[in-house]
């Protein structure tokens, strides 16, 4: 099989501006954005309290004087309280999937839709998409921003779209073979199902012409990338976005695949400590915060994504100068502080994934017996990880211990427990019991 290689291409000159030029551009656009939102009730009130006005925004440094926007703020202004233009100017609505209660509506003007398609074209180009390619979009089309966002992004590149939408895996594979599709767009977990189906139905790899895939819509791991790439013989690229900010197109990987380039001419990114709200150093994990610089219908100021990642400001080998974000490794809502160290349950999960044979079921218990935090991780035994030898079980515990320490920097007690002894959850799992409070 001929291995597909992605050529290094850059879509827009804005992706590789000198950093100083970029900062000046961001400062000017920030001023425009503040002017655009000054009549949005939420911002109007916050601005008047702290004496903020567009004419007082002179550079990027003024960003820190602006208020944060949270998911709760958006909920409180459902459905269109955040709209900065007249409704007649809106060209399309989308919504974020609310796991509880009502969704958050987002709106786009005609210009916003053009901007959005162009931002998607950037990361698609970074990930090897060429005008002559056919792209199968196996994302849901609807209120979810993924389907339509990528659809118009692919068209913007000049490639052709096969809007297969999500589901019906046999049909997806039929289309992929019959249409000799070059690239796949879907969630990484759906790609795993497609790959599994191909393997089970004994379809020869040569029947497919698939070269690369662009995954987004959910966090995934490097292990998943390796697995999908090996099974399908393709290159997989990660992209990131959220509807409150614009949808897909906030960031995406280039051919180097060492972090996702953030379109900084369109968004200012910050990475903060979710407790102190102070910025963290580059390379350190924190909560991502975005300010839109390009949106008309629903600009957003310092939106706290609750997504945990780190930023890399070093220039990339691809020639882009924009900041790169790591994979999203957790949610700030879940953050624990143990012995003064920030820990996310997802980091423990990540550690367990590195120890072969362990189950993804775990529970973190935190106590403070002598004014010192003690964290215990309970891990279920599986047939694969169990051994008749005490030495091997001790080694397993040590391996888990080292993996957790390696990722979190913290020593936790590891307890091996019986299978199915930890509670199972439908939907969001409860992974932490913190007995330190009350």
């Amino acid at each position: 099989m001929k291995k597909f290689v992605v050529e290094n291409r850059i879509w827009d000159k804005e992706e590789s501006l000198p950093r100083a030029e970029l900062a000046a551009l961001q400062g000017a656009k920030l001023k425009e954005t503040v002017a655009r939102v000054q009549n949005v009730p939420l911002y109007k009130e916050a601005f008047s309290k702290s004496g903020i006005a567009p004419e007082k925004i002179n550079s990027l440094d003024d960003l820190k004087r602006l208020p944060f926007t949270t998911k709760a703020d958006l909920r409180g202004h459902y459905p269109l309280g955040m709209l900065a233009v007249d409704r007649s100017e809106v060209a399309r609505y989308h919504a974020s999937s609310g796991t509880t209660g009502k969704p958050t509506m987002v709106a786009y003007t005609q210009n916003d839709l053009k901007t959005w398609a162009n931002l998607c074209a950037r990361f698609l180009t970074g990930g090897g998409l060429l005008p002559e390619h056919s792209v199968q979009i196996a994302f849901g089309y609807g209120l979810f921003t993924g389907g339509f966002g990528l659809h118009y992004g692919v068209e913007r590149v000049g490639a052709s779209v096969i809007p297969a939408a999500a589901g019906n895996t046999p049909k997806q594979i039929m289309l992929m073979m019959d249409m000799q599709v070059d690239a796949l767009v879907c969630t990484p977990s759906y790609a795993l199902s497609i790959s599994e189906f191909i393997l089970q139905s004994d379809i020869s790899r040569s029947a497919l012409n698939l070269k690369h895939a662009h995954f987004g819509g959910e966090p995934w791991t490097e292990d998943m990338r390796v697995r999908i790439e090996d099974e399908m013989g393709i290159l997989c690229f990660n992209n990131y976005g959220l509807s409150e900010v614009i949808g897909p197109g906030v960031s995406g990987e280039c051919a180097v695949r060492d972090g996702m380039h953030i379109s900084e001419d369109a968004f200012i990114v910050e990475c903060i400590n979710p407790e102190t709200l102070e910025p963290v150093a580059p390379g350190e994990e924190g909560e991502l915060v975005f300010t839109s610089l390009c949106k008309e219908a629903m600009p957003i100021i310092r939106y706290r994504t609750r997504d945990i990642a780190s930023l890399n400001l070093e220039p990339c080998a691809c020639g882009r100068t924009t900041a790169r974000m790591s994979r999203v490794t957790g949610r700030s809502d879940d953050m624990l502080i143990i012995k003064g160290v920030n820990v996310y349950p997802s980091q423990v999960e990540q550690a367990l994934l590195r120890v072969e044979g362990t189950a993804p079921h775990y529970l973190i218990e935190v106590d403070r017996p002598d004014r010192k935090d003690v964290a215990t991780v309970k891990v279920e035994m599986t047939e694969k990880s169990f051994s008749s030898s005490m030495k091997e079980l001790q080694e397993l515990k040590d391996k888990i211990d080292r993996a957790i320490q390696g990722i979190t920097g913290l020593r936790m007690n590891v307890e091996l427990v019986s299978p199915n002894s930890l509670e199972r959850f439908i939907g969001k799992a409860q992974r932490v019991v913190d007995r330190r409070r009350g």
Partner: protein
Amino acid sequence: MKLKQLSVFLENKPGRLRELCALLAENGVNIITLSLADTEQFGILRLIVKDYDKAKALLEEKGFVAKLSDVIAVEVKDEPGGLSEILKIEEASGISVEYMYAFTIKSGENAVLLFCFDEMDKAVTALQSAGLNVLESVELYQRAEG
């Protein structure tokens, strides 16, 4: 020449071992011998039973993790020096003991030592060429039930 041993993961919680033994007894599984290796938090129960597949299925159905592995049974006279003789033989062949336990067969005055070695096949050869009686599983079951 090897014998199937059923190992079960046991959390150190009151009643778990009793529950397990009762389950096997109710279903007519006769435990020839058992050994418990434990730490503060958990233990490994090692069982020799004739119907190991049935026992494993029963335990798994009740949510236990159980695993089959091989051990070697060696019959020795129930008198001082039996164990050290075996350890000497294995040491000379560069084989090491992962764990061992012992029991006495009802009908005789001989003891049976059960071993898990790092190199099982090599261990069997070394023991046999030293003239020791490595028990076949069928023979062990018959004599234990004898």
